[in-house]
């Protein structure tokens, strides 16, 4: 049974975020948690508020991943929030995501760094064996 999880991969100047899951949806959601983990410990983020994101899906899953992560980065920036729980639903022509999180609390979250944007560097969305992998480098 495939298990959803995330990790970071090495990039000299920045950080690579990577999500794994049984479906592209799970892998996308995990990649968003990997994004949170660039900033703070995911476990420290309480699911106090819920937010919906909706994006157009042109059919290219890789470009969609970058759009999705950039939409999450945007919401983090303008709302001053961090997200600790993410669900993604993919349809033929759109992506819907629910994000649960809370406002940045500097004493609690001790944010290490701010993410500027998701990039096309080492961008990959692919099925590897039983697992879907969704990854790219984010600029910090």
């Amino acid at each position, binding site marked *: 049974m495939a298990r959803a999880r995330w990790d*970071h991969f*090495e*990039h*000299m*100047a*920045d*950080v690579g975020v990577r999500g794994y899951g049984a479906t592209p949806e799970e892998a996308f959601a995990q990649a968003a948690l990997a994004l949170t983990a660039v*900033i703070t410990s995911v476990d420290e983020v309480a699911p106090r508020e819920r937010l919906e994101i909706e994006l157009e899906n042109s059919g290219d899953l890789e*470009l969609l991943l*970058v*759009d999705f992560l*950039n939409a999450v*980065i*945007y919401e983090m*920036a*303008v709302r*001053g929030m961090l997200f600790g729980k993410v669900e993604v639903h993919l349809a033929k022509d759109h992506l819907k995501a629910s994000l649960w999180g809370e406002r*940045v*609390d*500097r004493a609690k*979250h*001790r*944010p*290490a*760094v*701010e993410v*500027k*944007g*998701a*990039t*096309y*560097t080492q*961008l990959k969305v692919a099925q590897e064996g039983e697992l879907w992998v969704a990854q790219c*480098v984010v*600029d*910090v």
Partner: protein
Amino acid sequence: MDIKKLERVDETVWRIPPKGKMRAPVLIFADEELIREMDDKVAEQASNVTTLPGIVGACYVMPDAHWGYGFPIGGVAAFDAEEGGVISAGGVGFDISCGVRTLRTGLTREEVEEAAEPLANALYASVPVGLGSRSKISLSDKEMEAMLEGGAEWAVAQGYGKKTDLERIEEHGRRRGAMPSEVSAYARERQRREMGTLGSGNHYLEVQVVDEIYDPKAAESFGLKQGEVVITIHCGSRGLGHQIGTEYLKKMQQAAKEHGIELPDRELACAPLKSKVGQSYLGAMRAAINCALANRQIITHWVRQVFAELFPKAELDLIYDVSHNTCKEETHVIEGKKRRLFVHRKGATRAFGPGHPEIPQAFRSIGQPVIIGGSMGTASYILVGTEQSEALSLSSACHGAGRAMSRNQALKAWTGQEIVEQLRRRGVIVRSPSLRGVAEEAPQAYKNVDKVVRAADQAKIAKLVARLRPILCIKG
């Protein structure tokens, strides 16, 4: 980098001759040690840049270059709009007009060290740093528009700083040709509460001591005196620039396709300068340059307020403000002919030599100050543009140290607390909202900036003037 792949022109210049789809050569400025340490990806990315239409001269690579997004960081490339030349969002970067400015204080090291702790606390309280900090300023739609048009000139008119500051900023503090209409509502929203914020990552506010002078004449004309204290601010266009970078990286993928430009790498997404997307980006990017200039101007004002409180006799005069993530329209002499070019400098500083009309009158005969930011706790440097920099590198030089270690590697190697204590023992006070951030940004995670500036000096793309050692660092 594999040295065998390069032609050695002289001690500090290396060349990759054009082959395949390359339209121009790559020229790398570095000594042998830096070349060997440099990532192979730098050569690959610089070679890719030379395949873009309308490139003029070469892709110039600075001694601090490392692997970037499409363009290497530390890469310079100029394009001629009349020859189908392009503009690339990746060639500027996410943090548009990220840059450094240095102010002199006229105070001695001893004077400042007596009050170092209260100074650190006051600066940390006055300048918002790091994620989750909010500016005291919130811009209305009208103010946003005026800021994007006016840059530091707007900030000064709002009471942030002095009119005389403007002559010490590239383009006199205001990039003309900005088109706020091309800046999206998203980018504006991201910036609304971020004016005067420092950001995070490698951005900082440092109090430094001039601890060595290499060129007394240039140092004197810049107002640098051994043993005196200066302040350096390193930051950029904040959320606005990041959002513009993000949006145009995407738009340019499409534009490149539509204009039949073959991209060796998705990150090299670009559009012809004469296309709709090209012009739109140019207008938005210039607005972001103004945002960065206004941002550094506002921070300067808050720093001055802190100093006025603690050191009433200090006069904080701006030495110079340089940006190192830009694309600028400039006149350059190529094979004896003057040409208007759009010069991308991604992690590279403009370095005009003596006599250039863009340089402030006070040191026009000396050359443009080139400010090289170090990492937290290591030295920063002031260099000056040379007679040779125009012919060598289209008047461009390096911008900083560049990372030698990833963030994860740094986190495994030491803790933030260890770094804070190490720096304290070396006489550097650190203030940061995040110990993890301090660990990730530790001086040991960066390349040796001393080697980088020595190579730049040896290659004559810029000449060493002075070394600055930090005594206090505010880190996002």
